[in-house]
């Protein structure tokens, strides 16, 4: 029933096409971006959270 109202928009058919194009471009770009990283960099970044365990507790104060 809403098709009728949509027919009044100029070039309504362009909307789904735009959506499809945006999506394809987005995911192709994302894949390329992910692939462009070399393994060393990836591993280095992945271990960032584990690198902060050697803390120096001497400045601790009781509160």
């Amino acid at each position, binding site marked *: 029933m809403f098709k009728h109202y949509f027919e009044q928009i100029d070039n309504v058919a362009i909307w789904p096409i735009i959506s499809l194009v945006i999506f394809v471009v987005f995911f192709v770009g994302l894949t390329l971006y992910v692939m462009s990283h070399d393994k060393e960099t990836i591993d280095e970044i992945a271990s960032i959270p584990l690198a*902060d365990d050697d*803390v120096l507790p001497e400045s601790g104060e009781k509160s």
Partner: protein
Amino acid sequence: MTLEKFEYDNRIVRAFIIATVVFGLVGMLVGLTVAIQLFYPDLNLGIPYTTFGRLRPLHTNAIIFAFVGNSVFAGVYYSLQRLLKTRMFSDALSWINFWGWQTIILAAAITLPLGITTSKEYAELEWPIDIAITVIWVIFGINMIGTILKRRERHMYVAVWFYIATFITVAVLHVVNSFEMPVTFLKSYSWYAGVQDALVQWWYGHNAVAFFLTTPVLGLMYYFLPKAANRPVYSYRLSIIHFWSLIFIYIWAGPHHLLYTSLPDWAQSLGTVFSIMLIAPSWGGMLNGLLTLRGAWDKVREDPVLKFMVVAVTAYGMATLEGPLLSLKNINAIAHFSDWIIAHVHIGGLGWNGFLAFGMLYYLIPKMYQTKLWSTKLANTHFWIGTLGIVIYALPMYVAGVVQSLMWKQFTPDGLLVYGNFLETVNSIKPMYVMRAVGGALYLTGAIMMSYNLVKTAKQGKFLSDEADEAPALEKKKITGGHWHSVLERKPVLFTTLAFVAIVIGGVIEMVPTFLVKSNVPTISSVKPYTPLELEGRDIYIREGCNNCHSQMIRPFRSETVRYGEYSKAGEFVYDHPFLWGSKRTGPDLHRVGDRLTESWHFSHMYEPTSTSPGSIMPPYPWLYEDVVDPETVLPKISAMRNLGVPYQDGYEKIAVQDYMAQANKVVEEIKSQNEELKDQVIVPESEIVALIAYLERLGKDINAKTKTEETANK
């Protein structure tokens, strides 16, 4: 390379942890209260402030913004500093963020039981609080971006991406959905009306789940799970894909909350398609979390932190598979408006959000107090009692949802509803409500155990308020070409911009067509604005939170049109600021209640629901009979509505009070003439109940004027 010394701020983390625990217990306690009210309505205590309709938003807001919100702040403030090798940008901003947020929560805890609400789910808080939320949120953002800019670690770890996306998207959602026209200091009307209001609200509601309950918590998962397991995340590449596809797709799926409603079909389909697509990134994230533990499952046996996280990530996987499935129209036809949805959100809330927060707290407190957890055994007990609580909560709700929904739809061979009386379906699921409360109580018991355990742990340890660390300063690299910006400045800003673009695309494509074309909402000439009395009654309906149990949206199914009347049309809601479609039918739909029930029936029913509907779980509303309205208060409401485009004539305010009283007197006459027993009853025309009845009687009548029939049951 000189090492710079600096200290991490643990005080702010501790403050947010205390708030998390306290508000977690409060939010769960309110939840347990409303759960018990659903089978034992006397727990309403007969006072206005504790009815289900007012406590339900208090429960949802307390859990989402107070419990999960504070746990997210705690986790972000802890992990952000360490991931970026720097103290927070500004301690002052940290504390403004903390105290501001707690003040907002306090304001919510006071206003919601008082019935001060906008009625829009998870956005119930009124306009001054909305502004405060915006300010505090921006302060959090400035503090976070500032921290990123002064970092000593070149690469932004994926958790930080999730935090940035959370900040941006929540800001956009909150601002767009909170456009409202103030009437008085604590009363406003939504800028949008009807179908458009519903679309904006569920674009917000769905994405509040996405960007308040999911993305920041995923960020926490990507930091704390590798920490607890002491191994890097399974696939960092997968986490990049997880992040970008999640924020890009999530934003489109809001309309799946409005399937079979008066929302245009194309928008409904859009919501469904994108919901199905969402399975991919969500499960990518879940598998990434679980596979991080490959080779470390022996640790999971001993470490309560990992136990909680494994169940949390699993619950994330369950909920994110179930959500898309619920957005398939044939499944949604059964699940929507039923307790199935309650089960679904609690898999997410209790399982994903709650358990991840618990795991994080069990990890953080011993670390910050430089000691061991006081009792691993008690933590394990908490784990099992909590898990059991989730199961005992969710299973009865699934059963109740499906049972009741199928009962609503069942016909006899003669084509009559088998359960024409809505109450029969309520009574059949009351046992499930009891079981659900037991599950919730178990879960709360576990949380109390945790609180005790954490306090004991803190007592035996020594709090490290400023944790020292050192790292080399980040070299500022010069970029050839263009400006002499450093990478340091460029990357986070560029990243933030890209994330913003990603989330805006979906929102724009989803909403623009509906807002662009007036004809998207076909006008119905017989639909007229509410009279002053009805407008006042509608505000009482909003104040009492009726929309938390009653929908105003009849779906185009035979089972619904037979039970409730003609299905709802988009054009009927054009003057509804805000829309009141509701999302759960604890009681029957009310969109055409004006055609079904009489003034005197409502008068008896609202005073003591069981008098007209034996076994009803609706609370009585005796105060509506004593409290009176000053008709003058309607005048600014009329003006506000006119400013929003509702066609009240210029100068209508001059005669509005007169109209108000004339209609009120007529309602009183109707009540007395319809029921012998009420003939000598003193009914003040200005009393709130009269206005509410006028509104209920008006509902759904504009498009067809059927003759009313006196009904004895809530059909």
